[in-house]
């Protein structure tokens, strides 16, 4: 059957269109980006090669770049240590109620995940609005007038508010992943633990969590990548402000190229972004693979 499964013409016809599209829309652009990152082009007019000057400036003299990486790290931490455990707990509860009720709840929890980021972001921009937003109305009603701030432009609350929007939309995904993962745990393992006299916290920490390790690590890898990639929600809510406090790297490179007319510099940020994204993904995956082997 070599003629069938090793048919070269068939393989070429099947693989080349996809590879061509990816090369055209993904690989060549990154090549272009690298080329422009070595120039001082404004995006129009003439330009000069500047060597690695843009990279040098980003890494040594651009606090906004580092700030945007720190923000991504904060988002990762909040996602992994707050959103994920809550989602896991809720998934565990859903696994113990009737199929029908669990299905209804899961469908509701996932609603935000199917909506456009524009709708999601504008929803929350309005809820956070200091004058008519329901959040501040609620706070004033509760006599907490001093807490009723301008959430998205106050330096103390802006980052937290943006992170809330992101976490809120991502919640349905986390819940869905964990619920599906929990469904793969064989009932016998859980029952055997109960028969042996294990309490439910013991069952979870000793039996179910270790069994779920591959799912948990996949979700964490996804969280890490998506925290780095955040852009639209920030762009549409705070646009990196106030004073770059909510800056994320994808928003920053966009502003540099299209607002500040530093196209070359923006491309250098873009290339560093690819390096960071690929680097961290490989690192996190390695980390979990070796730990999985120890288990």
């Amino acid at each position, binding site marked *: 059957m*070599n003629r*069938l*499964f*090793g*048919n*070269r013409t*068939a393989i070429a*016809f*099947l*693989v080349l*269109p*996809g*590879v061509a*599209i990816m090369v055209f*829309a*993904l690989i060549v*652009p*990154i*090549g*272009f*980006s690298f080329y422009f990152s070595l120039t001082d082009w404004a995006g129009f007019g003439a330009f000069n090669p500047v060597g690695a000057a843009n990279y040098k400036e980003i890494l040594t003299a651009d606090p906004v770049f580092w700030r945007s990486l720190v923000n991504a790290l904060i988002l990762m931490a909040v996602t992994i240590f707050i959103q994920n455990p809550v989602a896991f707990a*809720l998934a565990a*509860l*859903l696994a113990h*109620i009737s199929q029908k*009720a669990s299905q209804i709840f899961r469908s509701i*929890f*996932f*609603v935000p995940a*199917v909506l*456009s*980021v*524009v*709708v999601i972001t504008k*929803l929350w921009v*309005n*809820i956070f609005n200091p004058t*008519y937003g*329901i959040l501040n*109305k*609620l706070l004033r*009603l509760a006599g907490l007038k001093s807490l009723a701030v301008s959430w998205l432009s106050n330096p103390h609350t802006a980052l937290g508010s943006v992170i809330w929007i992101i976490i809120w939309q991502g919640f*349905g995904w986390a819940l*869905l*992943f964990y619920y*599906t*993962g929990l469904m*793969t745990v064989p009932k016998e393992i859980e029952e055997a633990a109960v028969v042996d006299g294990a309490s439910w916290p013991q069952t979870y920490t000793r039996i179910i969590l270790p069994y779920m390790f591959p799912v948990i690590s*996949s979700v964490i890898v*996804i969280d890490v*990548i998506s925290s780095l*990639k955040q852009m*639209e929600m920030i762009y549409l809510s705070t646009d990196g402000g106030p004073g770059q406090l909510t800056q994320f790297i994808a928003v920053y*490179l966009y502003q540099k190229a299209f607002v500040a007319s530093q*196209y070359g510099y*923006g491309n250098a940020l873009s290339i560093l*972004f*690819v390096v960071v*994204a690929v680097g961290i*993904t490989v690192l996190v995956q390695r980390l979990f693979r070796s730990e999985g082997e120890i288990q």
Partner: protein
Amino acid sequence: MNALTKTPLFDRSAGKRFGKFALYAFLVVFAILQVFPLLWVFDYSIQKTGDLFGPELIKLPLVPVWHNYARAWVDGKILRYFINSSIVVVSSVLISTVVSFCLAYATTRMVWKLRTLAAGFIGLGMVIPIHTTLLPNFIWFNVFGLINTHVGLIIPYIAFTLSFNTLLFAGQLKTLPRSMEESAFLDGARYPKILASVIAPMAAPAIVTVLVMTFLTNWNEFIMANTYLSTDDLRTLPFSIIRFQGQYSSDYAVQFACMTLVALPPLVLYFFFSRWIMSGATAGAVKG
């Protein structure tokens, strides 16, 4: 049996019932938190803008003002943008589905030297952020006159959905027995026919999931559309909301009506296909 034992206050079944009640109450609170913002926006989309500024926490639409929707429809150019979104999304979804099906087939079932390398290359699409192609594509696509055209949006919409779709198809194609193709081959069928009439029907569940997931992803995409399209009449649906911010920045009720209209198509799709969306969404994390 006396009355006392009939209604015990602290026996196990009462405790269980209370636990169950608490559990459901907890779940309901979370459910409200997840849909409340939508309901809030819908609530004020059928009232006068002034009502939003009233002193009450939530005002119910006792006299619905549906006129807001008429204005949102016309001034938000909903119909024009809806048609544009449909053109871009339907074509990118169909092509992405076919192309990723082929990629998944070749990388899971066929035998060739560069197979692992090719699979790794396809996986790159999930690691490389879309945003890193925004700046260079603005120049690179312009070389072909693709900037500010629907084709210029369709191509990256295909490219960025290929990786996930291939992974999803691969999961399903791996499980099929090889004798499927062998018997069709011995009957004289050739590759296009084997794929279309033997393999595709067996992968039907994955095909539905890929179609729906890709549709949602591309339908909701904003930043590439925002970057590559500059002519107002070419833009896609999310722009209705953006339009209102500039033109009617103080007319919140119409803005809210517009947001509701834009949210509606994915919600309708989700209502009918939630099973497929949910099974597809987890394919990557749980299997991979």
